[in-house]
């Protein structure tokens, strides 16, 4: 090979490396958080930092507000919603009856006018938290529905498509009963997944595979190995993944296998509430601009839950065993 060809090749490699570095590292740190409240022409989605649990608030271009999950008992969801300019909630969705998702729903309903509520309608996990939530919905006379796969609703220019659960529940796992919705605004697609586990994902891939593609995927089940795998990533093909979990959580979230999978995927940018605080996606119908409350070194974003907690690192095999146990436990 001639020396000039070698030099050209080397230069090309350097340029490619610089573009890659810019896309993966620098770009995400330049965006400031948008101001609280809805923004005309934009869909603002905030993945609230409420510790171990899930809560996402969507402020729509037409000023409407949708809340998906409310975090665990004792978490500051109401205060965070106020901080982010929420005044009333047009639709609240409790994805499934686990307290780390619906624990603050009663407080939310008492603090804000909630016009409509979607719940999985899964009665086989009869906890006080779930009973109290349903009782409050009834007491306030809030419009109520248990949507099923195939249902959809337009909120102005924003469309919600329900992808899970199916007409009948797949098993007796509350996680697999999770309401999964794809939100579409213009060309932007975002997939909210509750704690859907592999069995529910398999069914979604078989029955609604053409509707799973999304630019942004909220990792199901806080980055557990039973909520994200290669088949799911192949079906959704996201460019952004958010993980909602707490630093030092007891569940080892996110799981080593999930972070290793994401680490190998150059097409996906990872955002984590445990490390970066509340995450905001600003969607203009064409592009999605991400910002975070805090910023961390990129390498940290691929730390496992145990590494963040400073606990001994479990091996991948150990993780597999762990995942098996969890799967059994959740049934």
């Amino acid at each position, binding site marked *: 090979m001639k020396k000039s060809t070698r030099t050209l090749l080397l230069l090309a490699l350097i340029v490619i490396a610089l573009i890659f570095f810019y896309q993966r590292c620098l770009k995400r740190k330049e965006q400031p958080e948008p101001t609280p409240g809805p923004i005309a022409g934009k869909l603002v989605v905030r993945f609230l930092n409420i510790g171990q649990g899930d809560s996402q608030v969507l402020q729509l271009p037409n000023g409407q507000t949708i809340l998906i999950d409310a975090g665990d008992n004792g978490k500051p969801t109401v205060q965070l919603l106020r901080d982010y300019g929420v005044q009333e909630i047009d639709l609240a969705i409790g994805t499934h009856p686990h*307290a780390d998702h619906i624990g603050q729903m009663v407080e939310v309903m008492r603090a804000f006018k909630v016009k409509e509520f979607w719940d999985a309608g899964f*009665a086989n996990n009869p906890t006080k938290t779930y009973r109290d939530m349903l009782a409050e919905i009834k007491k306030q006379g809030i419009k109520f529905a248990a949507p099923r796969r195939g249902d959809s609703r337009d909120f102005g220019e924003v469309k919600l498509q329900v992808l899970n659960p199916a007409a009948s529940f797949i098993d007796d796992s509350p996680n697999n009963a999770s309401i999964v919705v794809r939100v579409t605004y213009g060309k932007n697609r975002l997939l909210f997944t509750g704690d859907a586990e592999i069995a529910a994902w398999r069914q979604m891939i078989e029955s609604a595979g053409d509707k799973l593609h999304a630019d942004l995927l909220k990792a199901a089940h806080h980055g557990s190995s039973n909520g994200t795998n290669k088949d799911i990533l192949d079906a959704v093909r996201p460019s952004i993944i958010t993980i909602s979990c707490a630093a030092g959580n007891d569940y080892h979230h996110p799981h080593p296998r999930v972070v290793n999978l994401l680490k190998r995927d150059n097409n996906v940018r990872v955002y984590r509430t445990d490390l970066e605080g509340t995450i905001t996606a600003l969607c203009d119908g064409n592009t999605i601009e991400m910002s975070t409350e805090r910023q961390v070194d990129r390498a940290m974003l691929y730390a496992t839950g145990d590494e963040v907690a400073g606990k001994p690192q479990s091996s991948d095999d150990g993780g597999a065993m762990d995942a098996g146990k969890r799967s059994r436990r*959740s049934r």
Partner: protein
Amino acid sequence: MAKKEKEKDATADEQATDEAGEKGKDEAEKSADKNAGQEFSLKIVIDRVEDDIATLVLYEDDAVKFNLPANYLPEGAKDGDHFQLFFKKDEQSRAAMKQEVDDLLGDLLGQK
């Protein structure tokens, strides 16, 4: 939280199974009861009570620990005390709560 409780139960399941293997027929029978979801016990130790939080550890596997607000402890319980923690599945309680949830869902979905 519900999930957490479930996982604790499952950890307890596994732990008790190990104990049963070591302690003979009676323990194995107790384990069989546990597996049937009826009644079993775990030996726990109060490792410490600090700032009104009691840290309890499993006697057989002290890497397994969990916290409990100290006001839920029996009166006079202190650091280093050993206890048998009994689990008895309460089907009546579950059925009553399930009925309430079924009734509420039925009302809300207009099925009643």
